């Protein structure tokens, strides 16, 4: 049960985080730490690729919401990419699909957010 976070830097204020594994009460502090570090370092646009995430619980949702709030306050955004149907359903049943911008691909996310990859 592990979480791997691969970070890419398309430009100075944008990061793409590709997350692999399970986001739960054990691993979500790791994700939170990464998001906080990036936000404090001046990153405004965070594209989080969830396509390799197999499990997401309420603590993971909490971390994503915290990051969303932080970046929107900095006039940026935190967007989600490619969640499996199972993961997308968790956003839908909690109503959080209306709070987050969720895109099919990283390219879609970048285009809609006005970010150059």
């Amino acid at each position: 049960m592990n979480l791997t976070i691969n970070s890419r830097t398309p430009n100075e204020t944008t990061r793409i985080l590709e997350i692999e594994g399970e986001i739960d009460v054990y691993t979500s502090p790791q994700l939170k730490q990464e998001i906080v570090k990036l936000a404090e370092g001046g990153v405004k646009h965070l594209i989080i690729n969830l396509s390799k995430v197999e499990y997401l619980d309420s603590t993971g949702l909490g971390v994503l919401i915290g990051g969303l709030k932080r970046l929107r306050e900095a006039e940026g955004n935190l967007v989600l990419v490619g969640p499996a149907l199972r993961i997308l359903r968790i956003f839908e049943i909690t109503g959080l699909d209306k709070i987050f911008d969720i895109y099919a691909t990283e390219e879609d996310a970048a285009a809609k957010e006005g970010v150059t990859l």
Partner: protein
Amino acid sequence: MTQTLCDTVELTIPCRPEYVGVARLAVLGIASRMPFSYDEVEDVRLAVGEACTHAVERAGSTVAQIKIVSTIDSVALVIEVSDDVPADAEPVIPDEDAQALAAAGVDQQGLGALLMEILVDEVKITSTASGTSVRLTKFAPE
């Protein structure tokens, strides 16, 4: 006379974050014994994960344990997740997190409770001075 088969599986784990995944794995196997669809099995897994998370978040650094008792019969899968964390224990979500979430209009523990309510057919939470028990019931498809 009709005989009702009723199997019970018990698992006890330390009430700490790194063990919640162990409970989920076990429940995946147990729920697979029922005539549930793939999605229903996943629902049970997430609900049990949330019940354990609820215990872990209240336990802090205590030596509490979580006991997971699963009962399978032809009608339903009943999973009781009990901890020995005193009911008056405050959640140990760090303050800044709780504030950020509250400001965003979200109560994380509320999210966990909401998920459980949606994912299984019945949720019964009982708190006493000596611990909390979450009883999750998912009925077999007719």
